């Protein structure tokens, strides 16, 4: 978590998709402080987006962040995604759907509340260390 699902009306080339995946990872982690190991970005294309949009970003994100953080995340993702795909910002739509952390298990452990990742990350790091040996 987070899980970002991006729908575009046209097929995006591989380089654009990678740029968007990096943008979402950098922005999400930069603004929220979440660890980047678990940022997932999925694409689908050929979707006629509402309001003549070019890109629709849907994200399932953990609940518990303040409005300012959510707004900053939303605004940054819209403006920078628009730059990457070369359209006006009003053709990029975003929907952030907040979900309770305790409903999610990732890395083998129930996700912590936003801002309380340290202990959870320590446990996950032990598994990561074994995998990356």
């Amino acid at each position, binding site marked *: *978590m987070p*899980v970002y*699902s991006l*729908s575009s009306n046209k*097929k995006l080339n*591989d380089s654009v*998709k*990678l740029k968007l*995946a*990096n943008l979402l*990872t950098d922005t999400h982690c930069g603004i929220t402080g979440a660890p*980047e*190991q*678990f*940022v*997932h*970005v*999925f*694409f*689908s*294309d*050929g*979707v*006629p*987006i*509402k*309001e*003549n949009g070019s890109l*629709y970003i*849907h994200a*399932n994100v953990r609940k518990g962040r303040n409005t300012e953080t959510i707004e900053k995340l939303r605004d940054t993702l819209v403006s920078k995604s628009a730059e990457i795909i070369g359209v006006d910002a009003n053709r990029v*739509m975003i*929907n952030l*759907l907040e*979900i309770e952390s*305790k*409903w*999610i*298990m*990732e*890395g*083998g*452990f*129930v996700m912590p509340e936003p801002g309380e990742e340290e202990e959870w990350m320590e446990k*996950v790091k032990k*598994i*990561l260390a074994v*995998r990356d040996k």
Partner: protein
Amino acid sequence: MKKMLCIIQENMFSDAEIKSIELGLKQLYKEHYNSSEKLLALWMIMPEGYAFSERKKSEATVIMIEVDRSIDQEKREELMGKASQFLLNNFRVSPLDSLITLANSSFVNDFFNAQRNRIRPFYRPYILGKMIFKALYSKWFNGYYKLAVKL
């Protein structure tokens, strides 16, 4: 009827394995959640280049299962843990690559509504009809409902 959405990567599992995962998760749901309610499993199989985790090609298995709001946290965690173990023990999916969510119906409905509402209203019946046709086609030929990624 409750829903279960499974997002996996292309070539990660065979059709037979997908059906086994579906069956296993449905059994866990029934046994541990003690529910007689049916679970509709929908699969999204991400083609190469369409999924990234930690900036790299994704190997993630993302499962979202709908539950009633009455489920207590202990039961929720138990079922998430069992699902994670089931994927590890039977299909070698590391917990690092699995994301299991047991979400209340309200969240799952909001999620599916958002998926529908992203589509321009004029095209909605056509796109939804196409998705349903493809899912039924997949059920008939592959044995599971697959949602299209490229529409």
